[in-house]
């Protein structure tokens, strides 16, 4: 039985010639968790809105949308991207009651429904709070609860975790999973970050851009089929979760069950390494006829190494970068203490740190650990009560606000860039080309997508030509492709001798692009190390790749490293079978099971 189905849905916005949705056919089974995936601008939001009757956009529409259970007052719940904008009222209690008030239910029924709903989503202790005091993650869970309180049979979500940090996003998805498995609500979720959602979903709808559509605009897959599809079309591979990426890169298109999360990733890795070793001796003899060089070439052909990012000059340097080296220091913090008010607790406590010039420094840590406060103190927006903040002489400093929207003041992108002091048309155009936003110059800044807005804000900051850049969550809301672009840009800047200090929750990003990482907790820097050592030293607070390969192949923090390690290890084994047993880290004791169970 289908909860929602669309038949040959074609839709054109008013005053546009080409349709944005063309001949879309889809079915969403009752009780399923369906993931809608598509690149920016492919019409994801337009499609979702057609499935929510009260929000159907204006325009020319052909074809049918059928919704089962249409007899309910509110058959479909809808959660959008921005946590703030969806909240209508001032208190959590009222927000939860809003949908029920609209239905005109009696006070006793409303109170009962709100109470059970709040306890289900863990919001009881916040019931009396004002909505503006909640954190972003809490707000989004409130939005989910406020949509669920009307007891819809279908829940539609439009990039619900895009504005959240990864920890809050995971928490949100846990709640979503409960709604799906415990209440049986049909879920249609549109996402461009597949890291945590792919493992949850029963069905993946891939929405192609109407201009690039192969033969159908929407293709339906199971999550396994979807990975196979991505493995075949190289373009989409970077959107996959890290364990899946590694498996795809190593196995090519083997007939295997793709690992979708860390747990299955570990199992896959152990089996993969073991199978390599049991097979190799036989195949080694077969291959013995070939010379050693040819053997290596044969191995290379077998292993597909994902494309590396272009500007990796700093990455190579990173191994040689020593924190206490003679590199000149850009920012020094000595014994900094900070509190927001006289009677409020200290957010930073005797914090000392130094950041070297010409490198990317990451600051990671949980919510409320004082990360953003630290940036505020460094850039001088907040004055520390104790201690010193020293910026090296002749170095200028600029900060990127957490929400890029805050930095837009003009009606077009061009004017906005020109509003920065000392910017001329030529410089602006050059900058726009460099950031790949030249085609957007005439647009309104608020009409840009998340990635484009982030780039514009960054371009504005760079027009000031600062030596030190402070960035607060620069990857929030970006898809894998945009992250890669931004990361490469950062690397280029560091190569030019600029110092970047990045506060982020995005550990894979930090592992890939920073040279040093600090863990901030409870207002203190608990540990600071070179990125590689930092992430291999942590066992919980580290990247999925590291968690996936820990105790099987040690010392890998990014998918590339793990793929390299697997590949090099194999070559090593092939060249010299006698050392195989010595490499215990590779599962060389011939007992892959032991390795998978120790993890």
């Amino acid at each position: 039985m289908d909860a929602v189905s669309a038949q040959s849905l074609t839709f054109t916005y008013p005053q546009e010639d080409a349709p944005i949705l063309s001949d879309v056919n889809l079915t969403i089974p009752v009780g399923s968790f369906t993931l809608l995936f598509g690149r920016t601008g492919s019409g994801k939001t337009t499609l979702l809105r057609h499935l929510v009757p009260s929000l159907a956009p204006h325009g020319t529409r052909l074809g049918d949308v059928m919704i089962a259970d249409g007899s309910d007052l509110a058959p479909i719940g809808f959660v959008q991207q921005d946590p703030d904008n969806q909240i209508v009222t001032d208190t959590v209690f009222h927000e939860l009651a809003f949908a029920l008030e609209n239905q005109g239910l009696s006070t006793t029924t409303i109170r009962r429904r709100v109470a059970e709903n709040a306890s289900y989503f863990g919001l009881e202790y916040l019931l009396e709070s004002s909505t503006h005091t909640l954190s972003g993650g809490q707000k989004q869970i409130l939005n989910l609860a406020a949509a669920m309180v009307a007891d819809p049979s279908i829940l539609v979500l439009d990039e619900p975790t895009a504005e959240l940090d990864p920890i809050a996003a995971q928490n949100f998805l846990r709640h979503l999973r409960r709604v799906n498995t415990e209440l049986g609500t049909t879920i249609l979720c549109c996402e461009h970050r597949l890291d945590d959602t792919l493992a949850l979903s029963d069905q993946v709808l891939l929405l192609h851009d109407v201009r690039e559509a192969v033969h159908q605009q929407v293709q339906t897959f199971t999550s396994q089929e979807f990975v196979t599809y991505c493995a075949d079309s190289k373009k989409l591979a970077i959107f996959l979760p890290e364990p899946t990426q590694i498996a795809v890169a190593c196995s090519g298109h083997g007939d295997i069950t793709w690992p979708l999360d860390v747990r299955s990733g570990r199992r896959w890795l152990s089996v993969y390494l073991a199978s390599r070793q049991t097979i190799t001796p036989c195949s080694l003899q077969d291959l013995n006829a070939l010379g050693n060089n040819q053997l290596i070439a044969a191995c290379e052909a077998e292993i597909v190494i994902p494309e590396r990012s272009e500007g990796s000059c700093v990455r190579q340097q990173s191994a040689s970068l020593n924190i206490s080296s003679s590199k000149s220091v850009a920012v020094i913090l000595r014994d900094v203490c900070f509190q927001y008010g006289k009677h409020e607790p200290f957010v930073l406590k005797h914090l000392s740190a130094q950041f070297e010039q010409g490198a990317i420094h990451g600051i990671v840590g949980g919510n409320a650990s004082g990360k953003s406060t630290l940036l505020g103190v460094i850039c001088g927006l907040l004055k520390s009560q104790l201690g010193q903040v020293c910026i090296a002489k002749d170095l200028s400093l600029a900060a990127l606000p957490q929400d890029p929207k805050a930095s837009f003041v003009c009606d077009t992108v061009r004017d906005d860039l020109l509003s920065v002091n000392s910017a001329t048309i030529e410089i602006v155009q050059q900058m726009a080309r460099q950031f790949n936003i030249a085609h957007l110059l005439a647009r309104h800044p608020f009409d840009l997508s998340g990635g484009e807005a982030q780039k514009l804000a960054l371009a504005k900051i760079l027009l000031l030509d600062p030596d030190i850049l402070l960035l607060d969550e620069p990857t929030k809301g970006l898809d894998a492709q945009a992250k890669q672009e931004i990361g490469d840009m950062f690397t280029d800047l560091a190569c030019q001798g600029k110092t970047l200090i990045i506060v982020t929750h995005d550990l894979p990003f930090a592992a890939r692009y920073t040279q040093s990482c600090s863990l901030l907790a409870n207002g203190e820097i608990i540990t600071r190390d070179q990125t590689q050592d930092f992430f291999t030293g942590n066992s919980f607070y580290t990247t999925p790749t590291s968690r996936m390969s820990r105790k099987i192949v040690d010392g890998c923090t990014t998918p590339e490293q793990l793929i390299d390690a697997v590949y090099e290890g194999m070559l090593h084994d092939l060249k010299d079978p006698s050392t195989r047993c010595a490499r215990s880290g590779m599962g060389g004791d011939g007992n892959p099971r032991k390795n998978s169970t120790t993890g």
Partner: protein
Amino acid sequence: MGQTLVQAVGNSDRNAIRISVNRVGRSAQLATRFSLLHPAVMLLFFAGVILLTLLSYHPAILGLSAGLAILNICLYMGIARLWQLLQWVIPMALVVILFNMLFNHRGATELLSIGQWTFTLESLFFGASIALMLTAIMFWFRLYSQFMTSDRFLYLFAPIVPTIALSVAMVQRWIPLTKQRFVQIRNAQKMLNPKARGVRPLTQALSSLMSWSIEDAIQTADSMQARGYSGRYGDRYEGKYENGDDTKSAVRRSSFRSYHLTMRDICMLIAFGMLIVMGTASLFITTREFGFFPVVYGTEQLSGIALFAAAVLMSFPLVLEGGQQLRWMQSVRKA
């Protein structure tokens, strides 16, 4: 308020702290017996107290009102908060007295004269009693805003005007959000252009704030519509439903709020009503007998009934909390 504005950096770290502060403040307020009263009782209490204070010029009643207001603030909000309030209430009172002396030259007892300007004792008295009245009323309103939170207020008035009740809630949601955004925009400006001064950056920030708010209001509207808000309650909803019902009778918006009006609340309402009627009636009669100019007269004309009514009404929270404390101590001893 200015301080909180600067502090509202709008990051999650900050929010976490604000939550903790907020919760402590709320629990202190919720733990009182007074906060358990029905909102109607609270409203009548504050209306009566403020009415009695406003109607009387007599220093005895004003002093009583101000003194009891201070005691109540100490009880419900703590001495630290009282001190914060006094820091601006006392200068304000002094300014009122000073201005009255400067511009009001009536009165018989001359204290000082500089050229044409004469300063009289009666003018000083008059200014002082106005300042006392203002102070007392400020204090009572501070307590009013502590207890008559928007949900209590809306509970009383929502059934009469449901749309306005929702609008009030939405405005209360909108104000902190907009403040937070404004601070974010100003911070971003400071970083981009630290030397910019004057009006232009401010107008730019305001226009940018406007675009941001309008842009986001569309999403809020979507969110409301997706949760079944039709915008016109009372008449028929003409929109199309996918299930084939073209029109559907719209329901009247209901409200989630509920307070029980207990017998005790009713008794209090009656008692308060009687005290207020007594007090105001006697004040209307006696205020005619009391005045400042040309000399202070009629001070002995203080109506005992008015004083009694005011004293009983204004010390009511103290009695209530005292009784509660007593009962609590007894129950602890028994256990």
